[in-house]
């Protein structure tokens, strides 16, 4: 059955390659389109091979923007998106690890009630509470600001629950040993709990960064000034033009640029994530 093994392997690889091709083809088209001349694309004569306009298209995309009236360099949009995504990811992790610590390790009145209130917010995503949230942000004069973009999205039940579950698996003896070693609540949190949570934080960071990066509805509502636009909103605006041709190479370049940070985060964090899975530290 040795020959059979070989054939099976080729078949399996062939299927995998077909799958990869299906998934990768649109990405490839985007990259190719971003290096072509706009007139060519508009004529419907787009080549499947990369064109020669790579540098000029990307230069224009990042530093100048489209030639429309409300032009905005994509570099600035990326900065806005990056600030927002980082603030959401870091803010969520910080808030939820602290609240989970309080809920798991301290006895205070209405502890379980508070836990359930946090839990219930899971059922109220941004889209559901968008009007009251908008009202609050507007009343606080946070429209068109980084705070307005990120703060309302920071409070997180999911991350709190995840850290709570993790803390409950940390043996009680570690806390007791810390108490005997003279470590107070803050020291225990900082010296023991945080290092043990490192892999959880890495996993959460990946998820939350992408979640923040891909926000569309909230930034669309909260930002009106062009220089506060995020990249997801920017792409949409570039496509719908009223008085001119859509500049497809720039749209595609923007899409490619929009993909890069999440890819970078996943690749960078994956190493930490996998290492954490291999070396179980408990």
């Amino acid at each position, binding site marked *: 059955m040795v020959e059979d093994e070989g054939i099976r392997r080729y078949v399996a690889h062939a299927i995998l390659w077909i799958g990869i091709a299906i998934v990768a083809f649109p990405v490839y088209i985007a990259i190719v389109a971003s290096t072509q001349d706009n007139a060519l694309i508009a004529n419907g004569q787009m080549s499947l091979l990369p064109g020669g306009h790579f540098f000029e298209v990307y230069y224009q995309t990042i530093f100048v923007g489209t030639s429309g009236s409300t032009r905005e360099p994509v570099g600035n949009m990326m900065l806005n998106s990056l600030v927002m995504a980082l603030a959401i990811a870091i803010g969520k992790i910080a808030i939820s690890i602290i609240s989970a610590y309080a809920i798991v390790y301290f006895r205070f009145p209405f502890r379980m009630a508070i836990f359930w209130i946090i839990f219930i917010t899971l059922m109220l995503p941004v889209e559901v509470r968008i009007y009251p949230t908008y009202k609050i942000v507007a009343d606080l004069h946070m429209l068109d600001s980084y705070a307005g973009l990120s703060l309302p999205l920071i409070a997180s039940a999911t991350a709190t629950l995840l850290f709570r579950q993790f803390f409950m698996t940390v043996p009680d003896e570690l806390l007791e040993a810390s*108490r005997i070693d003279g470590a107070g609540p803050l020291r225990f949190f900082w010296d023991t709990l945080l290092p043990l949570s490192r892999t959880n934080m890495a996993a959460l960071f990946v998820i939350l960064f992408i979640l923040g990066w891909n926000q569309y509805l909230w930034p669309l509502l909260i930002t009106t000034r062009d220089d506060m636009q995020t990249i997801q909103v920017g792409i949409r605006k570039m496509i719908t033009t009223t008085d001119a041709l859509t500049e497809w190479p720039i749209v595609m370049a923007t899409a490619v640029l929009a993909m890069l940070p999440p890819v970078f985060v996943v690749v960078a964090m994956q190493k930490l994530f996998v290492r954490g899975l291999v070396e179980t530290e408990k």
Partner: protein
Amino acid sequence: MANVTLRNVRKTYTGGFEAIKGVNVDVADGQFCVLVGPSGCGKSTLLRMVAGLETVTGGEIDIGGRVVNQIEPADRDIAMVFQNYALYPHMSVYNNMAYGLRNRGMAETEVKSRVEEAARVLELTSMLERKPRQLSGGQRQRVAMGRAIVRQPKVFLFDEPLSNLDAKLRIAMRVEIRKLQRRLNTTSIYVTHDQLEAMTLADVLVVMNGGQVEQVGNPLAIYEKPATTFVASFIGAPPMNLMSTRADEIKSQLNGAATEAGILGIRPEDFVITDQTPAGGVALPLTVEAIERVGAETFIYGSREQEEQRVAATPGELPPGEVIVRIPGTEAPAIGARIRVAAIRPKLHLFSGDGRTRLEA
């Protein structure tokens, strides 16, 4: 260095469950005290109360002349070794030992010298940079010990520290712990459910049952004169044979002092196979039912004659009518043989009918 005194210590959980029902124990400076008892007897709870990890709901705990009921664990000047070691998984062996010292603001040079000294004593010098997960069970155990000794505390507390080790290592570590404690001469309280560990380690043995102290004393004294049937059956392996006995028999043993029926206890090792009945002693005819040879000695499980009226008094220890006899060597009667075993008067233990009092001649 300090003595530890427990005065009428009680622990009642919210909900009314009474885990510790008034315990009085006095551990002198430098002594090794072992708390022993079956699981659920409250021995670990008591130790955790001394450590300050459980609140005290009644009585006083006194360490070195200072009542510590309201004092934080870190300020009690104690060090504890946990059953699962509770090493900080993300810290190296060195940092595990140094952590408690640094938290107390000790100078780094002093920390270094103490940790290195402890590592030398415990043969951990080559492993100081490793993480706990890279160590074997015995090595982790030694790191946990090291974390306790670098602190140079007044009292060591051990919560079943050897129960996660295999049998051979357990014996080796038992000897190590005793040697180390003798050399440092630090007052120690050690919790175990293993009566052999308890007998070999203790200066003072505290036998606990159901949240109460059954007997306190020197291990050999407890072995020789158990105060209750519980202690009699818990200390010593295999357990003491216990059988109810008639008032007239007790009377004859105690020169007429008793008026009611009681319990007679004889240790397996105190029987000899003989046809004679020693003066003042007891003889039992047995049918041999099982033999266990362990090399140096042999255990004979026998059942007593049908017409005998005596039955075992402590439920769960021996089936009614079963007697264990321990003889040296490997020569034993065949299974099914009828033998006669006897014990002399000084080897008999007599208890009141409820098993709570030892009757002395």
